[in-house]
Structure formats: C-alpha cells, structure tokens
C-alpha cells in the first residue's frame, strides 16, 4: 500500500515538474528534457504489466494535456511501457528481469544502458510523432540525440539525489 502511494506521488510530482519547469527550459531555443520518463524507469514491474501500460498512458496523456500536444507523449510512454521488459532483459540479463526496489544497487554501466535505452526509445517516438513525417528523419534524430542527453543527465542526477537514504 505504501509503495502504491509512493508511485502515485511520484506520478504527480514528475508531471508537475515537467509541465511547469522542464517544458520551458528551451536550451538553444528548442531542447527540452523530458524528466517524467523517470516514472517509466522506476515503476516496479512484477506481474502487473497491464497496470503499468495503463499508468504510462495516463502519464503521457497528462503531459499532453498541459502541453497541448495531442497524443504524442501518451503514445511514446505506452510504447516504452510495452517494450520495457525487453530493455531490462537486455541491460540486466535474464536473472534481474524482475528487479524491484534495489535499482540503485545495480552496477553503474547496467543502469546507464537501461536508462539510455528507455530514454532513446521514448524520445525517438516523441519526435517521430511530433514531426509525423519520415522525410524529417535527420531532424528527428538530431532532436532525439540532443534532448536525450539532457534527459539522461537529469534523470541520473535525480536518481542519485534520492538514492542515498535507501542505503
């Protein structure tokens, strides 16, 4: 019960921070980090894939509502939620597939792979849905790359900040 409450709180805080601060960073004019992806990174996935996909949809939709972007973030979040088991299997190996709270005890390189893969997939989907046109593929890749680096850095900083007390 306590962990459910924690997840709901994380949902609200991340959406709030995203739509009030991080949507308006506009670094170099157009680069914004999407830190709400952290929710998808940290969601404890045991045997509740449907719950995860639905909450990812709601997460994306709330960001969409605040930034008037139709269904871009909802689509990208649902996509990442669906492929997350594959990503975590790839980064942590089969044994750690059902990892739970001990996220910060996993070694750094595995965590980096995991977060990078999630952010890269998410951002690629976001910018693909935003441009909605294959002829802009180079621009899409450029935006994904620049904004992705920004998001990965911030997500790492946030996980470091909130990790120490769990030890």
């Amino acid at each position, binding site marked *: 019960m306590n962990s459910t409450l924690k997840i709901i709180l994380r949902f609200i805080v991340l959406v*709030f921070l995203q*739509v*009030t601060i991080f*949507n308006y960073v*506009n670094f170099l*004019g*157009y*680069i*914004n980090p999407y830190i709400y992806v952290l929710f998808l990174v940290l969601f404890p996935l045991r045997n509740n*894939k*449907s719950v995860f*996909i*639905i909450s990812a*949809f709601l997460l*994306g*939709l709330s960001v*969409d*509502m*605040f*930034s*008037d*972007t*139709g*269904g*871009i973030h*909802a*689509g990208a979040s*649902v*996509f990442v*939620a*669906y492929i997350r088991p594959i990503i975590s299997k790839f980064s942590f190996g089969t044994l750690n597939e059902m990892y739970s709270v001990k996220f910060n005890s996993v070694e750094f390189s595995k965590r980096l792979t995991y977060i990078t893969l999630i952010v890269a997939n998410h951002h690629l989907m976001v910018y693909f*849905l*935003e*441009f*909605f046109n294959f002829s802009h593929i180079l621009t899409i890749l450029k935006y994904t790359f620049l904004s992705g680096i920004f998001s990965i850095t911030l997500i790492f900083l946030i996980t470091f900040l909130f990790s120490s007390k769990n030890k």
Partner: protein
Amino acid sequence: MQQIVNFFIRKKTFFLFLLLFAISLVFTIQYHSYHRSRFVNSANFLSGGIFSTTNSINSYFGLKEQNLKLQQENSRLKSLVYNQTQTHDSAIIDTTSYNGIYKVTPAIIYKNDYSKNNNVLLINKGKNDSISQDYAVVSDLGIVGITDNSSSKFSTVLSVLNTNVLISAKLKKSNHFGTISWDAKSPSLVNLTEIPKVAPVKLGDTIVTSGRSAIFPKNISIGEVVDFNIDKAGNFYKLKVKLFNDMTSLNHVYVIENKDKAAIMELLNGNNE
C-alpha cells in the same frame, strides 16, 4: 471458442498496448490537423488553474519589460489620436461600447510555446468573455494566432508558429496577396508564398494581414521581408518574413472578434452550393 478466448487472455498486454497506442495515434492525428476540436487540451480548469498560478509568479520577472512595451504602445496610439485631422462627431468612450464590427478583448498569455512544430498558447479569457473558435489574437506589434478550444475561463490559441495555421497576408505597398505559413525552423521567421512574380518586392517591405479571411481585420502588421526568391515553377515569390512580434516573450494580447463573421460565412457557404 475456448481457444480464441485463451488467446486473448494470453495476449492481453499486447491488445491493451495496441488499444492505448491507437488512441494516442488518433489524438496525434488530431494534433496534426487544423481545428478538430481536440479532446485533450490545456483549456480546462486543472491545467488552466496551474498555469495561472505559475504565470502569477513568473509575471513578476518581466514586469518592467512588459510595462515598457505597454507604454510604447500607448505612446504610439496617443500620437495617432493627436495627429488625426478629421474629427469624430461623438467621442468613443471605450472599445466595448464602440459600435464597430470588431470587438476587442484584452487577454494575458498564460502559457507560451515556440519550440515545437505546432505551438499552442493558453490565454486567460474563455466562453465567459464570449470568446470562441476562430477569433484573431494580436499583440501591439503584430499577429499572434487564432483561438481554438475554449472552456469557461481559458482558451487555447493556435500560434502563428504552428505548421497547420495559414494566414492570408499582403504586401502593404502594393496589395498583392499571399499566404503566411511556418516551416518550424525559427521562431522569428515565417514564409509568405503565392505572391505573384509581377509584384515589386524589395527587402524590408512591410507585410500586413489582407482582411480576406474574416478572422483577422485588414492591415494588422506581421513583419518585414528579409529574403526572397522565385519558386521552382517560376511564377510566384517565396518570401522570408521576419515577425515584428517577439513570439518568445509575449504577455499582453488582444482577442478580436469579427461580429460580421457569421453573416460572411453564411454568404460564402451559400455561394458554394
């Protein structure tokens, strides 16, 4: 039958994903098309309320700059009033009692976007202030956008910097018509196409609205020509127009309602049949 049911149960995550992804795609397609009364928009009490709170904090940081802008606008309007030669037979007390075809409502931008492909703004006036779809939004210096969805207190505005928005414009000096569109490259530059080759275009020419669309009144300034070339077919100019407005720092805007619009639309639709 049993097997089909089992199949669905086994693959239920996949079907859930497919369903939610399809819903997102529908919303995304709505986002990429002009005026399709979006189901998910920021003109509701929750996001409107949050943005009004953040705006009430953020607005303090730009107070001096905004005051200066408003003062400049006032001085420009005052010089117009003092220098006008013809006298009116009666004084116009304010815009709301003025009996013209355009009704002007002041509004404040709560949310300003300029880094996306289809930028949407949020203003603090809605249905309670008799704002609805397709009203013009302008600032002191030029056009800002067109209203889209309205709730009772808030409205979303499709910015000029929205790839779906097309605005009819003309060269101020020669009245040649064209269409303003945005290519999502820079928040200060828009494209003006369909200006015929015979038009005398020069760098620095002023572009204004044409008044042909029943949304924007005539002769609202848009920007100046910074670059032009002939398009591939060789019949039309393709102009780069630098907006007078700084779309990245908007605060006070005006919403313009054309009271004759219903009549114009009726007439136009009647002619089409």
